[in-house]
């Protein structure tokens, strides 16, 4: 029993931020997202015996959050149209660790700016892969798109980030190491 509780808490703590963020991109409400994540974890506790049988847990978590969020959305606005695959994604904190890269505050905000200027869908895919650690195939299944689309969107994100930003001036150190000049 004690082991279960501990594992349960660990699971909650380790998933909470990512789950909440994804729910928020659909619901656009902090409180509703909290509730959805909580609902999801209640189901997890109730079904803890069968949980280990799930083949791709990470994808299962995200799909569950998506479904719960959409249900909540339609309950909330009964009179409005159903969810139309519009996600709100905004990168407030960087998807990388600035201190690890020794970046200036200015460099960090410039990179964030480049990411936040990506088209919404592209931004969502980028986040799911880079921050949430999903595979291309998981994202395709989650968003009902093809793997080729994920591939193309990721390429756009990478290209935009590298084009929108002059890396050389902000990564002089890393730059010279990579060129073998050090």
């Amino acid at each position, binding site marked *: 029993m004690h082991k279960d*509780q501990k594992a349960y808490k660990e699971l909650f703590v380790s998933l909470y*931020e990512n789950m909440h963020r994804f729910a928020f991109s659909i619901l656009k409400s902090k409180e509703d997202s909290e509730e959805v994540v909580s609902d999801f974890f209640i189901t997890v506790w109730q079904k803890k015996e069968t949980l280990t049988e799930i083949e791709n847990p990470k994808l299962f978590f995200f799909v569950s959050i998506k479904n719960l969020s959409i249900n909540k959305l339609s309950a909330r606005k009964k009179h409005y149209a159903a969810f139309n695959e519009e996600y709100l994604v905004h990168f407030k*904190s960087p998807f990388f*660790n600035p201190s690890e890269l020794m970046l200036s505050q200015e460099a960090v905000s410039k990179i964030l700016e480049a990411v936040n200027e990506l088209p919404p869908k592209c931004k969502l895919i980028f986040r799911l892969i880079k921050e949430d650690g999903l595979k291309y195939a998981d994202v395709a299944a989650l968003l009902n798109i093809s793997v080729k689309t994920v591939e193309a969107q990721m390429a756009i994100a990478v290209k935009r980030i590298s084009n929108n930003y002059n890396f050389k001036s902000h990564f002089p150190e890393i730059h010279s190491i990579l060129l073998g000049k050090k």
Partner: protein
Amino acid sequence: MSQERFSILIAKVLSDEASLEEAAELYVLVEKKPEWKDAFGNLQELLTSHPVSSLPRSATEEAYLLHLGRLKDQVNDFDAIAQDSIAHADEDFQLYPVIRPFYRKWQVYAAVLIPLLLLSVTFYFFGKTNTVTAATYKRINEINVNPGAKTKIQLPDGSHVWVNSDSKLSYPETFKGSVREVFLEGEAYFDVVKDPFHPFIVHTSGIDIKVLGTAFNVKAYDAEPTIEATLIHGMIEVAKTNQPDAPKVILKPHEKLIFNKLANKLSDEVNTTKVQRISNATTLMSMITPAITIAPLAKNIADTAILETSWVYNRLVFEDEKFESLAVKMERWFNVKIVITNDKLKSYAINGSFENETIEEALKELQYLVPFNYQMNGHDIYINKK
């Protein structure tokens, strides 16, 4: 080759989605265009850096307590949980770093738990007498695995290494610079994370093995006359430690390279190194051994069935093995000392495998194949003719 293709490949490599072919394609592409190499290098630093959490740990803790309140209303097997969690909230939190996303945390748990199995981990600083590249490392982790034990670890780049009995693996706390280097004495199986721009190099006493991303086994025990590198998939490049600039040997999947320490010493004296491919592994024994030999493994068998890597799956497999050399393997496997007192017994050739046997069970099974008696005295085993 368009910039589109380049972007797709970069994105895939940085998301760990690229096949070996795609990684190789990007590698070739970038070699031709130095300006793309810069772009890739910078992107790699940026995109493979660990994400930071925007949520303070106290916020997650608070969310959990709130959640427990709601959980209590819906399930009845919960009371104990809440008490327990509140009571242990603080100490629990020191167990995991919150700055990483959950998929990395799982790796962290593994990284925390697995080393508990290790027999000893020591840190020391490399002296200046080591190779030039090694001298640039600050902190070196050293994994020592005792006889009779095995362990699996994860390197800082995410690569997995299974370290066999009686072996030592040294690696830097973080990989810095253009190559990922580790040092091995003994046997290990490597499953290396693909990174075409930071080749992975295993240094042994006789040969260096360089890879981009692949799975392979290296056996380099000081006490044995040969060093072996067996490739499971991918591509590896082998060079002699003392002649890094000499022509390198490229190994293809399901090939094994056997480096003969003594023959190498002899050939070094006349300054010629013979490399030759032979068609049948068993003819190896009967021929005059060159310094480096490449032998194919049996084709079309599952990775789990390959003799060289069977230890990874907890099996000690031997085929047409002399009792004498099997005894050496058993010494490492079971952490015992075996003395065979009779020369005729030593040369018996044996086939078989051990999986969960104790040393006594193993010896009893061997007695069906070889006529011997044994005496066990603690860790020492004497094998006598019947």
